[in-house]
């Protein structure tokens, strides 16, 4: 009886899920599988099966390797930075600060402003003849080409942080407000100092939020391509030439083999990363509750 009800519920759930499943399959999953198929052929038209040759070519391609390394480096630097800063902000704004709600809202603004208009401002700031160089010159420093030097990575990281800190801050704020005040009170009665409270209560109970923020930040860090592409074009300085530049240019020069195999490799890497993170998260949550 119970089993039967469960089965019926399953069908109902399936029906409710069907529209989104169809959409997902049609626009993401099936194209992805087709892409995988193309990545194993030598030409999109009348191609023959070549196995993993495209992947081999890709892994030996210098430009691809640079793009992958740049993407990795960017993520490795910007994601922890983003999390630290947004956690700090969240903790500050969790206390009673003057004009607290105004601050909270203002940090969210970058999220709702369209990228294109923002990029225009960034361009004006960081251009060779831009306002930042003008300011530096008036201070007696020599101007430099921000987007065409090793500074470009820093610029992209700043843009990414500016855009994403607000979102993470809101997530952290929600996490912070979910921690019962009793814990802190109990801890302070037991004689725990501020730092000890932060380390043993705040950090520990923020773990699930932190993981969520971590994953979202990583995914968002891949999206920074949009901003770099709009600021620096399809061939930016070699330090900020990302995977997405590579794929975009491959698409433009109709190299579907490289494009699909690069996309597949990247999807594989992200999936693996997320999978490992979930494993770690489950471990930690278990150890907290257990």
């Amino acid at each position, binding site marked *: 009886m119970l089993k039967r009800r469960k089965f019926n519920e399953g069908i109902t759930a*399936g029906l409710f899920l069907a529209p989104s499943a169809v959409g997902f399959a049609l626009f993401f*999953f099936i194209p992805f599988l087709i892409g995988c198929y193309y990545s194993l052929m030598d030409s999109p*038209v009348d191609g023959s099966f070549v196995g993993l040759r495209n992947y081999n070519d890709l892994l030996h391609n*210098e430009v691809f390797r640079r793009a992958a390394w740049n993407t990795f480096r960017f993520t490795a630097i910007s994601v922890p930075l983003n999390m630290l800063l947004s956690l700090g902000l969240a903790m500050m704004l969790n206390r009673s600060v003057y004009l607290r709600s105004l601050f909270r809202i203002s940090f969210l603004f970058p999220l709702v402003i369209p990228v294109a208009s923002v990029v225009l401002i960034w361009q004006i700031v960081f251009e060779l003849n831009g306002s930042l160089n003008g300011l530096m010159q008036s201070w007696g420093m020599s101007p430099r080409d921000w987007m065409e030097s090793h500074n470009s990575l820093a610029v992209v990281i700043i843009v990414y942080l500016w855009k994403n800190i607000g979102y993470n801050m809101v997530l952290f704020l929600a996490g912070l407000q979910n921690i019962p005040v009793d814990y802190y009170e109990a801890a302070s009665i037991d004689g725990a100092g501020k730092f000890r409270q932060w380390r043993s209560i705040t950090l520990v109970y923020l773990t699930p939020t932190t993981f969520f923020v971590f994953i979202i930040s990583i995914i968002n860090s891949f999206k920074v391509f949009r901003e770099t592409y709009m600021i620096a074009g399809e061939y930016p*300085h070699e330090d900020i*030439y990302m995977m997405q530049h590579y794929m975009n240019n*491959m698409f433009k020069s*109709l*190299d579907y083999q490289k494009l699909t195999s690069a996309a597949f490799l990247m999807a594989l890497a992200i999936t693996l990363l997320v999978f490992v993170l979930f494993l770690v998260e489950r471990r930690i949550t278990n150890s907290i509750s257990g």
Partner: protein
Amino acid sequence: MKKNMLSLTVVLIVMLLSACSGGGTNTEPNTGPNTGPNTGPITLTLAVTRTEGFFEELKQKFEASHPGVTVNIKEYVTSTVDKSASGFLQQYQRDMEKFVSTVTTEMASGHGPDLLVTNNLPYKKYADKHMLADINKLMSDDTSFDSSKYFTNVFDTMKYKGGLYAIPTSVQFTNLWLGDSTLLGGAKIDDNTWSWQDFADLAKPLVPQGGTALGGLPTDQLLLTMLNPGIEQFVDMENKKASFDSPEFKNLLTLAKTMIDEGIVSGSFEDMIAAGKGRGTGLFEAGGFRYVDEFVIGPIERFNGNATVYRAPSTTPNQGYSFRSNLTLSINDKSKNKEMAWEFLKFALSEEIQVEREGKSGMRGMPVNKDAFHQLLDKLKAPDAFGESRTIQIDEGKELTVPPVTQVQLDNIESYMTGIRSVDETDDKIFNLIQTESEPFFSGQKSVEDVAKSIQNKVETYLNE
């Protein structure tokens, strides 16, 4: 429950997949027939950026001589362009980008046009992907095609990786200049070997007051002019190597900047338009010879009738003459009508078409067909070549009498044709990169090292992607 969800998803996916492949199989029977020429009605599609009278004429003549064949001229750029409006260049660039991406997508999907006007298309990248037919092979397989009847040195300039994937059907010279013999005085110029440095040294003391050494050339085009021909010295497309960080390229950059700074070459694009395409105050002037008779008229018409034809300086000595074709054609290797496409190409190279000069059906260039070329030269010799009175109108109502054309002149004209060694073709991407990256150097904001390094990095990235 989870299991059910999974199987439901799988069923859905399978259904969708089979629906997709079902659609695919329906189209296949079409590939069966239509393989050989003259089997039933054939439609040839020719991809052009913008259709012109010339294409219409070509289509009509071809259809008349090949019954059962329809030529479909597919126009990709339909926006109207006002050449005098500001932003015209940007509009042109946008149109071209759109044209390239549309054709590229069509080619990659296997539904590309049978014939392509390749002037603005990255045909080398297409050839790398085996999308274009090797015209060299079509030529040698076709017994009715006699390649000795053509200026094959012109074709050879476009060879890529041992094959010929795009064929020029007409010639306009791009590195021939007219020099003002009065101003040049007795200056000795060995135009077979002179370099840009020689040009700068020679021109500096001779530049007329308020003028420029090279009329009609805006300063922002100088570097690209110096690299065309000659860019192959710095870019090896076949081996995907660039050497823009070499001392030679840095010297070239520095020389270009010196020429601009010292006013040897001056004038912006706007100045040029205002001055009516740089008439007057130049020491030299880029010739842009399109028709054989311009070799006769040019020298007597320009610089008060005291002009000499020179080959432009080059980055490497003995570079030969360089040309651009008004019409470069390629055949889609996946085309179902490849033989007929080849027929069409042959038709475009035939004497009948090639001999047409100007007007609606003109090639807008000199013929690559030797018979047609000689026919035009013979016409020049005729007493009525320039009208009964042998006078031509030049501006301000002046009239000039054209002296009889000598055999030496004709031989010279032919020697320009046979001396063609390179094609003035631009991989727009590389030229755009060079153009934008070199700007801060010319405005003095970056050092030559930085700029050369930046160009080198970007071009290598582009080549090796």
